[in-house]
């Protein structure tokens, strides 16, 4: 029964938590720039507004793809909080983004296509590191199930510092933050029209936004797994990680896609694989 409660709670509470996190994010960002910033509930006003607007549709299929994107993001998060198999979750998560890319390709706007191509590059950049993070957690806890990993008494972070740093690197890509916000960004000033969301408006854009809230809560849950042996340290670590991401977002400019791809793969190759190699050597040696 526990798994069902976890999944249902995620589906209901994650949009609330995700929206609040986005609100806090915008407030802190504004303060870092010496501004007052929008109200805490601004992300909810934005999404509410989008539902009030006319939905301009170029190709009907785009709405379907975005809806499926939202469903699969919610599904992968629900599986995660139900304590499911980490590999299945990662694959469902990837599939969701493929639908978003298809939605952006369904229209004829060249800006939308550039966004879609860049989203694919992002997928390639972060995917290896996500898989390595799942493998690393398996090596420490002997289970791919989130329920087992969360219940472990082993401090996974001490065995996986490299994997964690690698994951934090690709987290910047996933949260759509500078310097890796190449497919679309929260800040309009460095955008080619609006990247992957160019052709989405009204309620369709609202769905993309809600999916992003679900996604952020899921990703922060993933960060928590590294610290799950102690819930207090876990929550503090998640908060510090997110604060660091906001800081990085505000002090860096967007890089070119080549640099984003290199960073993702270097993180996976050096930090991720290097960490796992040392870990397996220690395990073989009985250390």
């Amino acid at each position, binding site marked *: 029964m526990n798994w069902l409660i976890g999944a249902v709670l995620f589906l209901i509470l994650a949009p609330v938590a995700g929206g609040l996190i986005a609100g806090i994010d915008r407030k802190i960002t504004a303060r870092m720039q010496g501004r007052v*910033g929008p*109200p805490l509930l601004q992300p909810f006003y934005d999404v509410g507004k989008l539902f009030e*607007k006319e939905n301009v549709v170029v190709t009907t299929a785009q709405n379907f793809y975005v809806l499926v994107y939202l469903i699969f993001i919610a599904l992968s998060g629900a599986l995660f909080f139900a304590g499911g198999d980490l590999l299945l979750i990662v694959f469902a998560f990837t599939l969701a983004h493929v639908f978003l890319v298809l939605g952006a390709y369904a229209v004829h706007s060249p800006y939308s296509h550039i966004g879609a191509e860049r989203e694919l590059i992002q997928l390639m950049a972060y995917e290896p590191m996500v898989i390595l993070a799942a493998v690393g957690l398996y090596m420490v806890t002997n289970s791919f199930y989130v329920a087992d990993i969360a219940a472990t008494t082993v401090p996974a972070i001490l065995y996986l510092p490299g994997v964690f740093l690698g994951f934090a690197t690709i987290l910047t890509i996933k949260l759509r933050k500078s310097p890796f916000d190449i497919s679309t960004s929260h800040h309009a000033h460095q*955008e080619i029209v*609006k990247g992957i969301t160019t052709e*989405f408006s009204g309620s369709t854009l609202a769905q993309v936004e809600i999916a992003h809230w679900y996604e952020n809560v899921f990703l922060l849950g993933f960060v928590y797994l590294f610290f799950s042996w102690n819930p207090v340290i876990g929550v503090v670590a998640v908060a510090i990680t997110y604060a660091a991401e906001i800081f990085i977002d505000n002090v860096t400019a967007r890089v070119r896609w080549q640099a984003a791809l290199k960073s993702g793969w270097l993180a996976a190759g050096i930090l991720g694989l290097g960490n796992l190699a040392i870990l397996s050597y220690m395990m073989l040696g009985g250390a």
Partner: protein
Amino acid sequence: MSTMAFLKRSPWILHYDASSCNGCDIEVLACLTPLYDVERFGIINTGNPKHADILLITGGINELNKAVVRNLYEQMPEPKVVVAIGACAATGGIFRECYNITGGVDKVIPVDVYVPGCAARPEQIIDGVVTALGILEEKRMKMSGAAQTKEETRHAVGEST
């Protein structure tokens, strides 16, 4: 039918420089700086007409960008408002007799709010946008009212047949 008015709390702006001397443009951008920080009111500067609620136009319309302005306006989803900023956007200003100037923004698309000035001050621009929010809200009510009438008519027809 939603009666909550989120639109007023989250107006996203599209800024287009028709043929401004850049004076008004700089004042528009000043509204986004830490001094005025219009994001306090949920106002965001977007570069995408499909995400915008308010179209800010600076400068008079010239023969070459007539089609561009019309295109931007048509791409914005309803409800939407247009704010003409500065003397040139209102009438063509000191450029009105130039060979390539058509005139004010209202020669091409309907304008809801005129912000006077050369250049318009940031306080005036913010005031213009706030005035525009009231008109935006009226349009939204009318829009949801129209949708409701349509729905009711559809029901009435459905019941009679």
